[in-house]
């Protein structure tokens, strides 16, 4: 079968890949490019574990076809830290024990970063609704919400 030849920018690097028409962006990231930090929890856009940034918007990469990413700017969890420096959200998730098993964590971090870029001072309710598309089965969300609020506060310079 014919594969598509795609060029995209991933975490600041130009990347070329071949993908089958059936493959999602998530399949491409994980199976073709070995960006396994992005997780598959459902494959139907219901759990948010595969959340990545695409052209500045957070998307479920299981709902984007691999071929659709042609020319796109993709950011994954692997690109979130700056060298040795973890992003404030990453630091706060560890500090607040906001992860247990950790499988939802990459998606929740990417989604949270997208929130804080848009709204640096969210209320608890705004954080809860923004993250309503990211399922976590371990934590009951309490410590996740606290970590995001605390990160927002610190990033505002408090």
């Amino acid at each position, binding site marked *: 079968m014919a594969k598509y030849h795609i060029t995209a920018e991933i975490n600041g690097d130009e990347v070329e890949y071949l993908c089958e028409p059936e493959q999602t962006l998530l399949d491409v990231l994980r199976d073709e490019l070995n960006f396994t930090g992005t997780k598959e929890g459902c*494959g139907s856009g219901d759990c948010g574990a595969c959340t990545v940034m695409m052209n500045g918007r957070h998307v479920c990469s299981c709902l984007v076809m691999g071929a659709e990413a042609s020319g796109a700017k993709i950011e994954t969890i692997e690109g979130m830290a700056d060298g040795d420096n973890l992003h404030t959200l990453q630091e706060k998730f560890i500090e607040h024990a906001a992860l247990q098993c950790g499988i939802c964590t990459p998606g929740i971090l990417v989604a949270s970063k997208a929130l804080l870029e848009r709204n640096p001072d969210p209320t608890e309710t705004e954080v809860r609704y923004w993250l309503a598309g990211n399922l976590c089965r371990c934590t009951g969300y309490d410590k996740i919400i606290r970590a995001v609020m605390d990160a927002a506060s610190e990033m505002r310079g408090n």
Partner: protein
Amino acid sequence: MSIAEADRPEGKEFKQIGKRIKRPDGVDKVTGRARYGADLNLSGMLHGATLRSPHAHAKLISIDTSKAEALTGVKAVVTRDDFVEQPDEMAAAGELPVNYMHVVRNVMAREKVLYDGHPVAAVAATSMTIARKALKLIEVEYEVLPHVIEPDEAMKEDAPILDETLFTEGVEPKPTKPSNVSKIVKIKKGDIEAGFAAADVIVERTYHTKPVHQGYIEPQACVASYSEDGSGELWVTTQGPFMYRSFTARLCGMEVSKLKVTPSEMGGGFGGKNNVYGEPVAMVLSRKSNRPVKMVMSRGEVFRATGPTSGGHMTVKLGATKDGRITAGQADLAFQAGAFPGAPIGPATMTAFACYDLENVLATGYDVISNRPKVAAYRAPGAQVIAFAVESAMDELAKKLEIEPIDLRMQNAAKEGTKAAYGPVFGPIGMEETLQAIKDHPNYNVPLGPNQGRGVASGFWFNIGGETSVTMNLNEDGTVALLVGNPDIGGSRASMSMMAAEELGIEAEDVRVSIADTGSLGFNFLSAGSRTTFAVGKTTINAAREVIKEMKARAAKIWDIPEDAVVWENGHARPASTNAGDFEPLSIVEIAKKASTTGGPISGHIQTNVTGAGPSLATEAVDVEVDPETGQVKILRVTVAQDAGKAIHPSYVEGQFQGAAAQGIGWALNEEYIYDENGRLDNPNFLDYRIPVASDLPMIDTVIVEVPNPNHPYGVRGIGETSIVPVMAAVNNAIENAIGIRMSDLPMSPPKVLKAIDEAK
């Protein structure tokens, strides 16, 4: 309550225990570096896919795989013919034992398919696309049979029989007709008739719960690699690598020594990753294709063919005197086992009244098979289901007696010295302390508004110990490598490093904990039953004590004094007194550096069957607001008080309480398996099977109660499960408090609550 236990006679304060250190696997998990079940790719690896039954109940007449095998890129196809028959033999598998005869039939259907999603064949191909195409080319001839989904139906005389060789166990005389009731168990104490005769007030009601899924976000995933030399390796997300080794080796006809299982990071389990599903299939595909094979379940497969926990049909009756003394408790419960026997009726009957000090108890459990996936353990299996009924009944009783619900529970609470109906006499337990903690909590006194209600409930879970092996190696620079065999579910590497550091007198970050593969350590039971922090922790402490003993011996050798003249304090060997000699203390680093000249490497290894687990009790209060227009229940406040014995890492103890509470809220309000008239699962996805999302919940307040377990050096009990037990009843009691109507059927979803409100008008 003070922390005093025999192993710490000097009453010295903890230096590590109780701190909130950063978990050692934290950075890997926030950067995407941590590797889970589906994250391994091997050279030449194939992709496996499973063909599943679309029927709830059918005879498997024939399976023709020839067209699939002929497809380019397909390297192996397996069916029932690739698995040898297994004997009628029980095997331990966490809280729910299983039978090899059933395990092999659940992994790949043999005579019949017994539920929608039952595996019928599997393929391995060079790409997932080809594997999926191959599945469509497999021709299966079924003879569809009448099916039965609900246990009430499955127990009827004329119900379709799933297994003609199954006769009810636990009835005399032995039945001559096969039945879907595999077993009846009874827990008895005192004289139930006399107990009810002595009651002034009796409440009795029938309750239903639906099967719910553990709902871990990471689907089952593994990579199996079978070598031409007859050995195999399995990389897998599992709660028990040693259990997966025994099951996979057995089903694949391998010697245990020939199979190495390496546990990946695990993306949630909650009891659902105690049992094998695709792992033996992947191994047989690998053997057939001579290539590594990755098998990853889709979410639909997870819902249709793994988990869930039992739904229950229960009748509970309580009797009490006017002044609130409970005279009798009776429970009849029928649980769905799914397609094969093994519902958690044992734990359910044992825990039914375990929160209370009762003279007269009778609990009868029925294990009922029907055309659903075989149930798996789920966080305090069985206890949560029966607690929904018993703790709702307690609330009804309190109302009838006009006694405050916490006071009624306090008056009847089990305590140290209470003889439980299921046998043991309790040591120190925290039932009264958790009740008091909730009563004292500010949340319990917040005024309620219109349509708002408050409910309270308690719960019990045994906790377990079990087979444990731990190795501690002192590295040449004085740091410590700790090897444990239990996958880290919710921060156990952090708590192990803290307990090791506490003993050794060093910092937790100087202890690096690794989860062993099955070739590197002796047998370890599952990470289940809330055993890990208790049992592996206790074994870790004992391994550290072995290392300390050896380090003292090395210091004695260096100083040329008797070993018993050396003591270990704050990470240093010191002479016991000035009489022993005048030597500068030797640090762990100095002893490690000199190890090669004082006798070689220093390590401690303990293998044991840990006993002495302490039951953990919890009491929880939930506030709700019911929308009378829609029947929607909003959770306003949740307060969890659970007895941890001793919290090693308080943040992760709180995290377990909070996570369990959230799962219980989902169970109470939304989650259920829905089958259509053909016995097909109607909601095998996270859109239609709705687990709580962030906007459904408030912050979840916690109180860590600490009544030390005398059988752990620091007082630890297990804490992973109990907090889910009271939730559904607490929500139910809150709804009753809000609208004056007592629900008895889970989930208490908007249509059901609205119907109840409309009917009461």
